[in-house]
């Protein structure tokens, strides 16, 4: 194994600028972008890099996110490596095209900053924007820190291109997008070797008449979904592999799931995104007070790493799922997914679905500690619980 390339280039930056740095290091061919709070600093930083001549990507600024994604799709179909970024209303405006991009098997990488959708208007961290896109065929990753956002942006290209599926990486509005932390900027040559652009043959090119998206019969359409199923089954492994190789290069290891003090845990939080930081603090306090608490952070949400989750949760009596999102009539989306994935499993934990931080409200570690005390020995909750 090669020793990690130790890099001393550490700069203070927020999560969005870290994403822009990831894009800069890889300089994809084309990036159509449309501004929206709180994604805008990604766009502005990329424009800034371009004006300094340190980014060779062709940036397009069309009139809407809809056209940004249409341009991204067409450019990717023409063989370009493509990045875009959005949030909330912008992501929702793209909805029709998200299905298209996945169906056409285009390895576009998009960064989404999780924000509440209207109505009413709000600009707050909440993951319902991307979670409501879960059936479009995009791989979804959720990050916790600016460093992870930079690292994951690069890993996303490797994953997307290996299975020819688009990847959406998400971080929480403000808590990550605007939080300033020291971020190590990896070596550009290392990054470019890590995510080498593969040769692709099935795309639009002159001299060929092969087309994309052409109307097709029932059996042909059905076949496309079966092929997507095969591709999706590779994603957990690809995410593991990308995180492992990245770890070898940088010393920062990632996987589909992130475990914290789960080995002998009797109760765990399961969550995604920045909530994990708060949960980690709560775990440490609980441990100091003699409660065997732990944390599982779901980094890869689509496809969900089922066997990893089953293996981890089989040993743990209680799981408290923290959802910073609310699906009306249902509850928390992660909670619903976990219930489905663990159905029928022997020794499944008692699960409690907590609607914690919906709309960006603050959830301090003490609140999470109290949840553990209140629920660790309780019967499984039937309905989701709103956390005050």
């Amino acid at each position, binding site marked *: 194994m090669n020793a990690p390339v130790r890099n001393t280039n550490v700069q203070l930056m927020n999560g969005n600028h870290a994403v822009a740095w990831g894009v800069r290091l890889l300089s994809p061919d084309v990036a159509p972008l449309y501004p929206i709070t709180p994604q805008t600093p990604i766009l502005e930083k990329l424009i800034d890099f371009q004006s300094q001549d340190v980014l060779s990507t062709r940036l397009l600024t069309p009139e809407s996110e809809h*056209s940004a994604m*249409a*341009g991204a799709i*067409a450019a*990717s179909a*023409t063989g370009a490596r493509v990045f875009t970024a959005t949030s909330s209303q912008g992501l929702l405006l793209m909805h029709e095209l998200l299905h*298209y991009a996945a169906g056409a098997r285009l390895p576009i990488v998009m960064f989404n900053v999780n924000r509440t959708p209207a109505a009413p208007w709000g600009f707050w961290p909440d993951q319902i924007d991307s979670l409501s896109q879960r059936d479009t065929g995009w791989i979804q990753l959720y990050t916790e820190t600016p460093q992870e956002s930079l690292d994951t942006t690069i890993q996303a290209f490797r994953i997307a291109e290996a299975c020819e599926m688009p990847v959406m990486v998400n971080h929480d509005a403000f808590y990550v997008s605007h939080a300033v932390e020291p971020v190590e900027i990896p070596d550009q040559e290392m990054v470019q070797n890590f995510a080498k652009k593969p040769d692709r043959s099935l795309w*639009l090119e002159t001299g060929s008449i092969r*087309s994309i998206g*052409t109307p097709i019969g029932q059996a042909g359409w059905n076949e496309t979904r079966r092929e997507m199923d095969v591709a999706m089954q590779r994603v957990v492994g690809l995410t593991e592999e990308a995180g492992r190789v990245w770890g070898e290069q940088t010393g920062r290891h990632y996987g589909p799931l992130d475990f914290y003090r789960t080995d002998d845990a009797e109760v765990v939080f399961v969550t995604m995104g920045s909530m994990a930081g708060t949960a980690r603090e709560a775990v440490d306090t609980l441990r100091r007070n003699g409660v065997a608490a732990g944390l599982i952070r779901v980094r890869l949400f689509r496809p969900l790493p089922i066997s990893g989750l089953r293996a981890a949760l089989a040993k743990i009596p209680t799981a408290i799922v923290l959802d910073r999102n609310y699906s009306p009539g249902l509850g928390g989306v992660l909670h619903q997914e976990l219930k489905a994935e663990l159905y029928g499993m022997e020794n499944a934990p008692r699960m409690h679905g907590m609607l914690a931080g919906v709309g960006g409200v603050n959830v301090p570690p003490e609140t999470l500690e109290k949840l553990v005390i209140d629920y660790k020995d309780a019967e499984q909750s039937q309905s989701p619980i709103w956390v005050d």
Partner: protein
Amino acid sequence: MKDTGFNDQGHFCSGHNACAGCAEALAMRVVLNEVGEDAIGVVAPSCVAIILGAHPNNSAKIPFIHGTIESAAASAAGVKQALIAQGKNDTTVLCFAGDGGTYDIGLQSLSSVAERNEDILYVCFDNEGYMNTGGQKSSSTPRAAATGSTPLGKTTRKKNMVEILAAHRIPYIATASTSHMGDLAEKVRKAKAIRGTKVLIIIIPCLPGWGVADDAATKVARLAVETGVFPLFEIEDGVKYTMSVGEKTKEIGSYLELQKRYRHLDDEGREGLQAEVNENWERLAEIAGK
């Protein structure tokens, strides 16, 4: 045989899916032949997408991305940017859409592409309605025409798309008709040689949509030009107008009587339409300096 001013290179194949007698297939033939093989196409859901064929067929000799209806122009810009990133600056990006995809649902993205002067050749096949969905009105449907959603005749006039485009000051806009094939071919050649956003709007009498006989599409298209209903002209840089056919030689009745979509009209209705055509023509002639 009469010289059509157009030399078929076989870039549009037989076996396509147009209704027998449809002028749209003819228009596609001329455009694809003049554009040649160093091109990538974008097509919006519309008759033209159906005519190109279902998977795995393609009646054109260039590849197409069958995109979404409201983003034809945005998609074309994406293809162009990818080609530039690959150093293929000279490859033509050809965009095919219907009038619904141009005047209505795709207007926003087309306006943005025109404002940015993206280097694409955009062709609108204007059959004055949503024919792929069975013949409803679009904002290109003319006043009085009956459609599935305007069974008593549309009460408002056809949107003046050419003037909207001209206001963007793009380098080239032209109207064309398969009845004037040499003129159409010449306009495609001219547009292809220009860098920036070029838009061609071609009038396509739709056989079922307009209630036109199977053998009358080109005849109706010719009458649209000769009556001044659909004048042929070019606009360079949004300001320099040039009439391609400088005279209006026929009354509107000869055009209307070949189409079932106008059969409910009485004399007064026909006179109203004639007055509208006269007014439009005079305005255009004045701008064009005739």
